[in-house]
């Protein structure tokens, strides 16, 4: 959309409008699809960027906005869409991978939480599911997937920031993602989930220190992305297995995606390293998104060539 400001944060209402406008003004390339409903009955949409073609294409999935307070994450998904649409004709790298790959982008998964972080509590993290007769709210959606659910780095206390829910996939937001990904998993090559903060590219797994079978390749690709980012922008990202370089956690979407057979699965923890933490100022959106764009396209390019 003309005049949309990508260097400011936007409330959900504006992101909904942006999605509709993006589809309308790029109808040859972009479609908006229904993914599911939130706890508070809001509709979750994702965008599909597909160049018309007769050949069967593989899929890159990227989700943003799992944790409400990490506002840079939805800002990046929007930036990514903008960059692809602005440059796919002129940038040979983008043009090439779009011939083989469809991009599925979910700008905000935890819509209820995101709205709550705008209207009530900026540092809210979880979704807004009620527990204990409405005295306690929220499940951490990134502890709610069916990957060693509830075993490590979680809490069963609903007032905790890392409450894993009442069971695997107990939350409608989680189920919405799972249903689509399960249906498409044989075509999905790469699952990217965007978070903040800490400047990491994290590989599976968080729930065990046992490396996945394709660990060497997973690490190589992530290290290539981090090196490209460091070379061009000087920003240092650490690469490694979640349980080894960050902390152990179970029930994450990254682990789940790899466990169901998606070969390349990464969590990005964007800027910064703690100066602003979860309250990254708006003037950091552009540099953060520019460097992340390079890292993400480096990964997509590798997957495409493979």
């Amino acid at each position: 959309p003309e005049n949309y400001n990508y260097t400011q944060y936007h409330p959900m209402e504006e992101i909904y409008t942006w999605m509709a406008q993006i589809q309308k003004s790029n109808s040859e390339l972009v479609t908006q699809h229904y993914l599911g409903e939130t706890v508070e009955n809001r509709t979750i949409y994702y965008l599909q960027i597909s160049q018309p073609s007769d050949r069967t294409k593989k899929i890159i999935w990227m989700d943003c906005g799992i944790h409400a307070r990490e506002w840079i994450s939805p800002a990046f998904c929007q930036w990514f869409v903008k960059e692809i649409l602005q440059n796919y004709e002129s940038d040979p790298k983008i043009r090439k991978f779009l011939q083989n790959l469809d991009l599925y982008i979910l700008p905000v998964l935890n819509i209820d939480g995101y709205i709550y972080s705008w209207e009530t509590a900026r540092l809210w993290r979880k979704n807004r599911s009620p527990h204990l007769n409405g005295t306690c709210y929220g499940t951490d959606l990134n502890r709610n997937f069916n990957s060693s659910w509830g075993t490590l780095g979680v809490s069963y206390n609903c007032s905790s920031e890392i409450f894993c829910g009442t069971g695997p996939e107990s939350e409608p937001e989680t189920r919405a993602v799972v249903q689509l990904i399960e249906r498409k998993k044989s075509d999905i090559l790469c699952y990217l989930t965007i978070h903040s903060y800490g400047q990491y590219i994290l590989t599976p797994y968080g729930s065990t220190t046992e490396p996945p079978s394709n660990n060497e390749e997973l690490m190589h690709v992530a290290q290539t992305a981090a090196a490209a980012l460091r070379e061009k922008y000087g920003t240092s990202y650490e690469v490694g297995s979640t349980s080894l370089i960050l902390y152990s956690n179970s029930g994450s979407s990254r682990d789940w995606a790899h466990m169901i057979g998606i070969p390349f699965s990464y969590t990005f923890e964007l800027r910064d390293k703690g100066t602003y933490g979860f309250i990254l100022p708006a003037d950091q959106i552009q540099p953060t998104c520019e460097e992340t764009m390079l890292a993400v396209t480096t990964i997509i390019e590798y997957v495409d060539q493979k």
Partner: protein
Amino acid sequence: YNGDQVLHIVPETLQQVQHLQHLHSTLLLDLWKPLLPEDIQAGEDLHIRVPASLVQEVKDSLDQHTISYKILIHDVQELVDQSAPKDTSSRN
């Protein structure tokens, strides 16, 4: 979040780690990094948000236990106000 501060601490000993875990659990502080008190480790960064009403108490306690700290964010609300302008018309 008026007057809330985010502190950066790198505990050096097991005793310091235990004291920080104790402070977290008794004062219900908001751990930013790591997310779980059991993941607090000697030599590792700790980022913690302290409500305004507890800032002095926490700092006194850290001083008593010779735990050095740095203030990452002096006033959380000030930063929150900057990141989401009240006037949304300017966004468009």
